[in-house]
């Protein structure tokens, strides 16, 4: 039964963000604020970098504010001004990306002014931006979200998000469905998904953790992954990305949302997160860890699979 989700708090949040942005820009605590602004189409939003106080009224927060703005802080985006302290609007899932990047010393906490959002969920896709937020159109990541109230931010609008109706845990169900399949069925499922990929690299370009100067898959000396969008090269590409994100991915789900071919990429990352939690009891959360699960070890790690 489809229920609409109460997001009345978003208008209060929008005003709070605007006044906060105006304040921190006018007394120059920050040199720029990265937030969301309205797009041309009804209900659509775009990321925006504002640098003056009177631009603060452009900021808003709505159910269509899906982007993980943290990608603009990484060094992959050289053209966003990096001087001085930067303000940024972050939802709970985005904040986990900031925490991950702090742990990997890509960002410095003192250069950030985090505007946390008490989030009641966002849309799953912007193909129809004016869609109403319901239990059907809500993003899959929000159904399993446990961090609605961001922790450790510089400013959080004093609003408590309305309790969410209980939502079907889509990722958990899909992963268990896939795990129940036989290996050849799983291979067929993923072969069909990966052969749809057209190598547009949107999943890499929006990912806050994909900040390599030159991606392994863009190199040809040595050429480890095929460049052409053929099923074989696509499979290798998505496996390499899943391994590179294992233990780091914060679950912002942007890779899956931006894929023009609707490939369920976040399934791979959620599965790896689940396995790493079981194997090494480590999870991307709100506390800064300077070594991830795959960059540290313990003497007594499980080695039952090793002869």
């Amino acid at each position: 039964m489809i229920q609409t989700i109460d997001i009345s708090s978003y208008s209060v949040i929008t005003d709070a963000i605007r006044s906060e942005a105006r304040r921190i820009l006018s007394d120059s605590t920050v040199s720029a604020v990265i937030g969301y602004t309205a797009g041309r189409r009804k209900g659509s939003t775009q990321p925006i970098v504002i640098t003056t106080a009177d631009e603060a009224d452009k900021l808003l927060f709505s159910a269509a504010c899906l982007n993980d703005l943290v990608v603009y802080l990484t060094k992959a985006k050289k053209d966003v001004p990096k001087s001085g302290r930067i303000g940024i609007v972050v939802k709970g899932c985005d904040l986990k990306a900031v925490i991950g990047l702090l742990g990997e010393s890509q960002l410095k906490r003192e250069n950030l002014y985090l505007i946390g959002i008490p989030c009641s969920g966002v849309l799953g896709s912007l193909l129809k931006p004016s869609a109403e937020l319901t239990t059907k159109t809500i993003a899959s990541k929000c159904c399993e979200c446990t961090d609605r109230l961001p922790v450790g931010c510089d400013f959080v609008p004093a609003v408590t998000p309305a309790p969410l109706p209980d939502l079907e845990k889509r990722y958990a169900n899909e992963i268990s469905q896939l795990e129940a399949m036989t290996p050849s069925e799983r291979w067929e499922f993923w072969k069909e998904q990966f052969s749809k990929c057209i190598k547009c690299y949107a999943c890499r370009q929006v990912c806050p953790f994909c900040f390599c100067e030159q991606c392994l898959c863009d190199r040809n000396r040595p050429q480890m992954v095929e460049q052409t969008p053929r099923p074989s090269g696509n499979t290798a590409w998505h496996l390499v990305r899943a391994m590179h994100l294992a233990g780091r991915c914060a679950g912002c789900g942007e890779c899956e949302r931006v894929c023009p071919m609707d490939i369920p990429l976040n399934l791979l990352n959620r599965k790896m997160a689940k396995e790493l939690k079981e194997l090494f009891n480590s999870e991307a959360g709100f506390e800064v860890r300077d070594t991830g699960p795959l960059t540290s070890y313990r003497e007594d790690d499980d080695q039952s699979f090793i002869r």
Partner: protein
Amino acid sequence: MQKQITEANLRLLIDSLLLKGQRVVGPRQSGTMVLYEPLASASDLVTDELPRRSIKEAFFPVCEDLLEYRKEGQQIELKDIDPARFPETVLFGVRPCDAAAVPVLDAVFSWDYKDQFFLARRAKTTIIGLACTTADDACFCTAVGLSPNDPKGSDLLLTPLVGGGFLVESQSEKGLSFLEAWKDRFSEPDDTKPLPLAQPAATPFDLKKIKAWLDDHFEDPAWDSIATRCVGCGACAFVCPACHCFDIVDEGSEKAGKRRKFWDACGFSKFTNHASGHNPRDLQPKRYRNRIMHKFKYYDDKFGQTLCTGCGRCIRVCPVGIDIAGVLEEIEKK
């Protein structure tokens, strides 16, 4: 020549084409989206949604082999691709914004050197267009001089009629010969009224004025405010019916392998990266500027046409919500 065909006869026509071993490509449900794909049977045809990728793929594939090489000792033997092996194809249900882009691409692919990979497929393909009765707020074909029932590029144009069935208008020789070959499926047009066409909510752009601004605003701070948010992926270029840039790479070993041509996009940083590391377009706004310039100025300078048909796909798939219609509006106001 005008004819009429009922929904049932159209499906029968598709099935008989398939039985003849003809490849029929049309919009088909593929998982959670609609894509132009080869149809297994007429029931696959979906006519109520704009496919996620454009029809350029039927002429300019995502990835195709250019040649095959094999090395014996110091000698190399090259195997060419025989254009006769491009499959004869009939495209059903092609949207006017897709069909209109194909003749635009003819210009670049036959500029001095004839790219047989595009032109041979073009010659072996019949395009049957389908007028649009629904549009969403991303469509802006009327803003770039096209319309929901624009015959440009289609060999036959189907216009949905009230109560099902389609009015068929032939637009080219190929369309006429197709009607001739299958005349028993078609009937004479009675005067049933066509369904109301879609009205995209976009006011027409003055493309000349936009081009004039682009002519002398290569260096302009506006590009930064427009394109700083662009993250440099290729989604907009790959779903676009008019973008035609590609890359060529060898795949295989030194002993044997293939040379392949596949889609590329000017949004990528490595698109113009020199071996010395120098990159003329090092920052993202410069790359997005090239996209707008190529579509609305360079292609006009070279071939007198606009490399955009207003399908709105790039607006729908852009990860950061860059809206090309919004950008054009902003430029037009300047």
